[in-house]
């Protein structure tokens, strides 16, 4: 049994429409991608889509109230909301450096939560 899915690649702003052929639950081939980065994206997109999460954690004693964070690698799309909520429940102490690991294995699948901005302490 083979079926076709059309997905929009979000890896870069070109937004190629990629057709993925799925056989027995396996993505076997793709077409329509303007570059090779589109292939793994499109295949994952029909089987188990992933996204890099960007979110916020609260900052204690910092120059800003919030510190932007991101996952060190893409997480399952279905987990995005729960993980963003989890991030918001975290408070870290200022100062933070961009790239600091704030929580390791944040999603339970090996993605760490990284600070995405350097923010100094208040005062």
């Amino acid at each position, binding site marked *: 049994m083979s079926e076709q899915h059309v997905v*929009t*690649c*979000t890896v*870069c*702003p070109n*937004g190629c429409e990629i057709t993925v052929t799925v056989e027995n639950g396996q993505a076997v081939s793709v077409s329509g991608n303007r570059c090779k980065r589109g292939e793994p994206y499109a295949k994952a997109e029909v089987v188990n889509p992933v*996204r*890099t*999460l*960007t*979110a*916020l954690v*609260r900052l204690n004693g910092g*120059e*800003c*109230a*919030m510190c*932007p964070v*991101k996952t060190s690698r893409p997480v399952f*799309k279905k987990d*995005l*909301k729960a993980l*963003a*909520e989890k991030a*918001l429940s975290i408070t870290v102490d200022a100062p933070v450096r*961009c790239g600091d690991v704030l929580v390791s294995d944040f999603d339970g699948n090996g993605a760490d939560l990284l600070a*995405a*901005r*350097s923010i100094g302490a208040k005062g």
Partner: protein
Amino acid sequence: MTDKPVVIVGGGPAGLIAATAAAEQGANVILVDREKHAGGILNQCIHTGFGLAFYKEELTGPEFAERAAASALVKGVKFMNETSVLSVSGKTVSVINEHGVSDIDAGAVVLCTGCRERPRGALHIPGTRPAGVYTAGLAQKLVNIAGFLPGKRIVILGSGDIGLIMARRLTLEGAEVLAVVEVMPAPGGLRRNIVQCLDDFGIPLYLSHTVTDIRGKNRVEGVTIAKVDEKFNPVEGTSFDLDCDTLLLSVGLIPENEIAETAGAEIDPASNGMLVDENLMTTVDGVFGCGNALHVHNLVDDLAVEAAQAGKNAALYAAGHVFAPCTIPVVNDGAFGNVVPARVSGTQPAVIRFRVRRPQKGAAVSVGTFSKRFAHLQPNTMESVTVPADAFTDKKEAVLCLNNTL
């Protein structure tokens, strides 16, 4: 060579990259920004999507800003933060900070003041004026910097990229986004943002619809939405109500050019951007412009290329370089929303950046004897052509033409 500094006004990505490029030419560079931290609008854009072309890596806005600021610092750019530029007169830059007002005698100036959001007053929505109506960029700042959620049940008017990005952000931060409403038949933002900001979260997008009424006395209680016809008039019998506590407006950005005006630089009435020549010099000698203050860019990576050119040219100018006179006006045949630059010299290749007014399939963009084919052109995407010097055969004007090739 004078030792007068190149003064960069505005420390967003355009200012940081222009400053770095000027310093690379050996100029003494001062970068003035009114905020405590450089980075401009990028500091509130916490999503990824920056730097893929410029840094060959997908970064968030603040990460891009930190890299750009670090490069500027390494090249010896002097930062004057928490300092506002009041005016530019000739090449004298007046600034104010906690030490008071002072003047900087510059060898060249680059204006990188960014853009601002079209205010609510520019929209004509009937109904009450309750609290709970925000521009999308203000909401972005509230959520991402101050940690304040503007509402729980949200409707977004306008499908520009900021509106789409905010639909996802608000959803992730715990609000419910009920709808994104767009008056045009096509979304204003990039396709990838429709997918990853709306489709991912099942947020409905109503194209060819608008908000016809806002309800609520003190706080927004709901909005009425209706379909519109080709003339953008609401179609009778199509309206429906949504109960919400917040309406976000994502209806466009306009270049911020208060400082350019004090300098006497000519502004394009159509785009509100400064009129520049192929060297990105404004109509005032030695005053250059780039970034969103010139025309609103989709991508920081494109903006970086332009900013580097402006910074380099400003340094050359300060060092005494004389550019070939730009006497050939670039004329828009009417198919383009905006065209930069306004004048070329015809003595060197010129990069012409533009947006089309209407979506095009299979079109050629031509100037003089030069022509380039595009498979697709979208009003929401800035494009460019690099025109060789010898293509400018007509020395009186260079008409930028759009020809359908299908």
